[in-house]
Structures are given as structure tokens and as C-alpha cells.
């Protein structure tokens, strides 16, 4: 279309160059002021007056011309006014104000899409935040659980002092007849009855506690313990009592040896003795 226009223009240019200006007007498009009025062209009733009129400009040459001049003045004044207004409103006011309906709709759509995108982003980030918060929580839970596990393991391994219901056993052996294995039986019996923590004399009994005979009594974990033997165990007092008193059990053995096992069920016994853990030298955790 643009090329067409240029073609047309150049054609007009050529026409202008070759033809006298007056003739060219006859094939000019309508609506421009370049076409003479029909009566002026056909009849040519007053060409001298007209040429005189426009040559003199808008000087007072008659009522009609005065009116025409005034009308033209008004129109051009309106044009100038409109130009000023348009330029002013175009440059000063908010750019959205001058946009067409379609453009506004498009902009609104863009904004809506953008808002949607941003909302989506907000939701995603919120999700991530929740996830992180949840994982933080689960970390904390795991940590608490590990802490509890650690404490129970510490009790079982004898690295911390413990307290709770249990029994306090005093085994007297005036004739020194009880051997290390008899005393180990006491420990095994108590352990079998569910004792969770034990102390033999001054020694904390753990999984690796050793009993060996010594000249005047017994050696527990290398430490000499003489009768009467004091054994404290934490567990269900009744169960522990029963376990020690079963026929052929600890109490019977002590009696046979000429001694006596005195068992006190207590609601609260304290085991202050600690054992030291050896760091494993060969075994390493597999991480499972």
C-alpha cells in the first residue's frame, strides 16, 4: 500500500512537471480544498473578481468574502486550538489515558497474565517455605528422638547415673563360699528379669562387666569387692524379687553357701556408679 502511495505521488509529481497546474487539479481527489467550486469552473462567472479577491487576500472586498474570511479564520483557529490541546494532552497526561480501548484491553490482559504469573510464583515460594519449615520440624523431631535414644543407651551402657524403682540386694557370705560364677548368676538373673541398670558393689554392671575370683571375695571389672555384696538394680521391683527367689535361684544358692540374700523392693533406688566406654578400635558403624 505504501509503495502504491509512493507510486501515485511520483506519478503526480511527473504530472505536475509536465502539465500546467490548473489542468492537473481536474483529476485531483475530492475532499481537498484544491478543487475549484463547480460553478467557478464551469461558468467562470467572475474570474476577475475572484482572482482579485484572493490576490488582495482577505481585505474587505464584499460581505461574502468577509464572511468567508471569517469562517476560514474560525476554522484555522479551531485547528490551532485542537493542535495545542492534543499536543498538550498527549504530552502531559497519563499515557494510559490516551490509549484506545483495544490497547487498554491488551494492557489489562498483560497485567492480568503478569499478576497470575506472580501469584503462581508466590504459591511456589510459599510451598517451598512450607516444605523447608516442615523439614526443619522433622529435623527437630528426629533430633529429639535421637536425644531420647542417646539417653536410654547411656543408661543401658552405664555412662550416666540412673534412678528409678528397683531392688537393693544384700548377699552375705560369711564362709566365702560364693564364687564369681554365683555372683555372675545374680547379675544374669536380674538382667533376665529386665533390670535396666545395675550396680555391683561400687561397680556399674554393663554388658562387658567381668567377674573373677579373688582371694577374699570377687573381682568385678578388676576391682576387688568383698562380702557382703551390695547389688542394686533398676527394673520392675516385683519381677526382680521373684526372679531372685525362684527355686534353685540366687537366694537358694546363697543359702546353700551358708549366707543369705536379702532383697528389698524399693520405689526408688539410685545407681550413681559410672562405667567408662571403650572406643571401638576395629568396628565402625556402617551408617545404616
Amino acid at each position, binding site marked *: *500500500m505504501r509503495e502504491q502511495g509512493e507510486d501515485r505521488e511520483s506519478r503526480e509529481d511527473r504530472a505536475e512537471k509536465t502539465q500546467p497546474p490548473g489542468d492537473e487539479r481536474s483529476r485531483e481527489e475530492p475532499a481537498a480544498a484544491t478543487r475549484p467550486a463547480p460553478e467557478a469552473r464551469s461558468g467562470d462567472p467572475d474570474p476577475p473578481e475572484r482572482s482579485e479577491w*484572493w490576490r488582495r487576500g482577505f481585505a474587505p472586498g464584499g460581505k461574502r468574502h468577509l464572511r468567508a474570511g471569517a469562517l476560514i479564520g474560525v476554522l484555522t483557529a479551531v*485547528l*490551532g486550538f485542537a*493542535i495545542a490541546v*492534543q499536543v498538550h494532552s498527549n504530552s502531559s497526561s497519563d499515557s494510559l489515558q490516551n490509549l484506545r480501548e483495544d*490497547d487498554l484491553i491488551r494492557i489489562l490482559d498483560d497485567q492480568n497474565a503478569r499478576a497470575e504469573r506472580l501469584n503462581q510464583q508466590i504459591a511456589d515460594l510459599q510451598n517451598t517455605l512450607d516444605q523447608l519449615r516442615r523439614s526443619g520440624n522433622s529435623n527437630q523431631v528426629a533430633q529429639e528422638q535421637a536425644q531420647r535414644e542417646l539417653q536410654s543407651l547411656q543408661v543401658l551402657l552405664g555412662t550416666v547415673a540412673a534412678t528409678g524403682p528397683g531392688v537393693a540386694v544384700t548377699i552375705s557370705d560369711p564362709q566365702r563360699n560364693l564364687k564369681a560364677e554365683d555372683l555372675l548368676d545374680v547379675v544374669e538373673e536380674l538382667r533376665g528379669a529386665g533390670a535396666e541398670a545395675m550396680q555391683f558393689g561400687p561397680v556399674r554392671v554393663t554388658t562387658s562387666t567381668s567377674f573373677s575370683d579373688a582371694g577374699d571375695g570377687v573381682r568385678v571389672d578388676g576391682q576387688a569387692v568383698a562380702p557382703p555384696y551390695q547389688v542394686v538394680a533398676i527394673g520392675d521391683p516385683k519381677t526382680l524379687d521373684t526372679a531372685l527367689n525362684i527355686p534353685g535361684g540366687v537366694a537358694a544358692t546363697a543359702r546353700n553357701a551358708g549366707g543369705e540374700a536379702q532383697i528389698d523392693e524399693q520405689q526408688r533406688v539410685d545407681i550413681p556408679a559410672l562405667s567408662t566406654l571403650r572406643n571401638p578400635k576395629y568396628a565402625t558403624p556402617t551408617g545404616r
Partner: protein
Amino acid sequence: MIAGLALIAGVVVGLLLRPTVPHVLEPYLPIAVVAALDAVFGGIRARLDGIFDAKVFVVSFVSNVVVAALIVFLGDKLGVGGQLSTAVVVVLGIRIFGNAAAIRRHVFRA
């Protein structure tokens, strides 16, 4: 002469008053201005050609403005307002260029 003075006077008045364009007229004012400019350039050319007619100028001025605004209005109603106003501006721009070329030839003889 009078037309030029009136144009300047209109610009001055517009700058002084700084009126806001009514919302209804907003899409049509720029097109109307371009159409009126086309009429004015046509008038100047006609005057230089010696065939200026006040009546033709007035009629063409008004009808140019009205038709341009009407086309844009119709385009808006049909949903092609943006494209149609572009088309009107292009057509009027071509005409203004043509008239300006004719005026240039008259004024500068080149």
C-alpha cells in the same frame, strides 16, 4: 494571512486555557487534526495555484474532519479502530506530503 494569524491565535488560546480533552473525543481529536491539516495544506496549495475558493476550503475542511472522525468511530465500533485510524493517518499523510511537495515547488521553484 488571516488564516495564519487565526492558527497562531488558536494555538495560543489552547496553550493558555489548557483544556482537557473530553473522554468521548479522545480517539478522534488527533485524526481530526490530521484531516484538518490535510485540508489546510490543500488550501495553501490551491491558493498558490491560484484556484483557491473559500467555500471549497470550508466544506473540505469540515467534511475532512467529519469523515476522518467517522471512519475512526466506525472502526472502533467494528473492532478495527486502531488499524483504521492508522490507515487514515497514512492516507492523509500521503496527501499532505503531496500537497507539501506542490507548495515547495511553488515557493522554491524546485
